[in-house]
């Protein structure tokens, strides 16, 4: 492909991907009473409404809390699974991989329904967040697994052996040698887990307790009866929030330090 043509091609793809987001963001600054595009005048009016809307605020807090828990649990289980998969699975390798990726292959609704049956049959119910978090961990696990096992592939097992020969026990080898070297995969996987958990609808909808709601559920609920730019303001905030998480973890945890 010739260079200018390729550039244009890329621009079109980007426009296609980003245009809806731009529309939402612009619409959120609408001064009018209805969600329209182009907006009628610009104002922060709907942001104020949103920030003073205790229902939305509670939903955001719930979502953040669930996403944080999910990220930690999924990060730990997914990393351990990836380590097993790459270094110890042997003949079980393919089986382990399929098992780990299974939640991606099943329709989310099915996973959600079976989990719902499960939490009730073991007596957990849906009034606590356990079922919800289990569901989120389940669907985010494949992303942690894929990311971590990809960075494990370029991890030379001889590094662990060398550390061992120098006197490092199992835990030290992991903390001082392996973890720093697979960090990009772990952080990448955790980011995926966080964003997906923050965004997921079906699983949350099935497993939520009465009167509980996450941001996507609340938004959906809201849009059934209202059509104000507040919805766009909520969406814009959620986009900014996820982007902030990505940028901050890159800066603070040093996703890019891994240069060699």
């Amino acid at each position, binding site marked *: 492909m010739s260079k200018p043509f390729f550039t244009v091609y890329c621009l079109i793809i980007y426009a296609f991907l980003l245009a809806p987001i731009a529309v939402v963001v612009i619409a959120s600054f609408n001064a009018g009473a209805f969600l329209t595009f182009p907006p009628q005048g610009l104002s922060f009016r709907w942001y104020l409404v949103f920030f003073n809307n205790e229902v939305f605020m509670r939903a955001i807090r719930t979502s953040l809390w669930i996403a944080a828990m999910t990220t930690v649990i999924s990060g730990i289980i997914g990393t351990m699974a990836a380590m097993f998969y790459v270094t110890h699975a042997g003949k079980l390798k393919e089986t382990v991989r399929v098992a780990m990726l299974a939640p991606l292959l099943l329709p989310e609704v099915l996973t959600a329904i079976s989990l719902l049956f499960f939490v009730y049959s073991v007596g957990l119910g849906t009034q606590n967040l356990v079922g919800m978090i289990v569901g989120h961990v389940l669907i985010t696990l494949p992303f942690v697994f894929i990311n971590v096992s990809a960075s494990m592939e370029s991890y030379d097992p001889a590094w662990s*052996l060398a550390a061992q020969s*120098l006197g490092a026990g199992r835990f030290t080898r992991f903390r001082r040698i392996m973890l720093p070297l697979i960090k990009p995969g772990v952080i990448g996987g955790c980011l995926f887990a966080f964003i997906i958990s923050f965004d997921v609808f079906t699983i949350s909808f099935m497993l939520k307790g009465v009167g509980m709601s996450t941001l996507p559920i609340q938004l959906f609920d809201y849009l059934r009866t209202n059509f104000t730019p507040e919805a766009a303001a909520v969406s814009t905030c959620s986009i900014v929030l996820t982007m902030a998480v990505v940028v901050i973890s890159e800066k603070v945890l040093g996703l890019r330090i891994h240069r060699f």
Partner: protein
Amino acid sequence: MTEVSIEKLTKDYGQGPAVNSISIRIAEGEFISLLGPSGCGKTTTLKMIAGFEDATAGAIRFDGRDVVHVPVEKRDIGMVFQNYALFPHMTVEKNLAFGLEMRKIPKDEIRTRIAKVLDMVQLTGYSERYPRQLSGGQQQRVALARALVIEPKILLLDEPLANLDAKLREEMRVFIRDLQRRVGITTVYVTHDQAEAMTMSDRVVVMFGGRIAQIGTPSEIYERPANLEVAEFVGQVNIIRGKVGNRIVSTAFGDVPVSGDFADGAELMLALRPEALELLPIHSGATGAPAKVLSSYYSGSLVDYRLELAGGAVVNVQTFPRTRFADGDQVLVHAPAERFWPLGTVA
């Protein structure tokens, strides 16, 4: 300094023994090479000494203490890996400090020991570099320094020079050997390169198919190989056959007295190294077997000839290129009787 003794060590991965009941006594400060073709069990042996593999049977003793059940991290070994295995996210200094930190050595002592070892491997001034900023040879020396700085009981190296180019490889041979002598550490070196094993080692252990074929000094291995396999693995060799009669084998080069109990009439194989033979002009009047030059390869300091003897047998001869013979020339080949070495009877 540590004496290492290996007794009837066996490793079976489940498809027959990869290492089969080998016994070696390694003296304090000795440099031992494990030499053999691919798959003969060298790495497996080294891994068992290091503790990376469990032994199926047998004992490994460091100064008389059985270490078979001591885990790698407690065994106090220094290991150099084929691809160096330097930690890529750590500077040279951090790489070297790692083993010392594991031993809870105080910070200022760590600093002095690192300075000392860097000086020893001639890398002073490189402590802030990352492994990727070093050449292959420099990485190799860091790996060596990392293994030595912890002052281990024993140094283990698995084909450490395999990734270097030929010139550097020869330099590193001398370097490692000198360093080992200075430090005086008991060393086990794995290689399938016979020149490496011969030039570096106090003794060479030749292995085939998981068994030890011969243990000996480089000259013993070369000049008095235990059997045909060893003779052929270590350098080039001509195999001369002949019948024993009265402790004498008559060959094309004349009668060769043999020591050892060989029954009269048995057919013997004698090893004769190419450089043991001497080429003379056909009309020189000396004793020797007449032969025709089939081909010759000139390599600067030496010439390799392929000769056909009167009976049709082919022998290889290596000489200094003082007198050159052309292909097709008739020559006399002289072989001193003491340069023949009996390898056993023909099966």
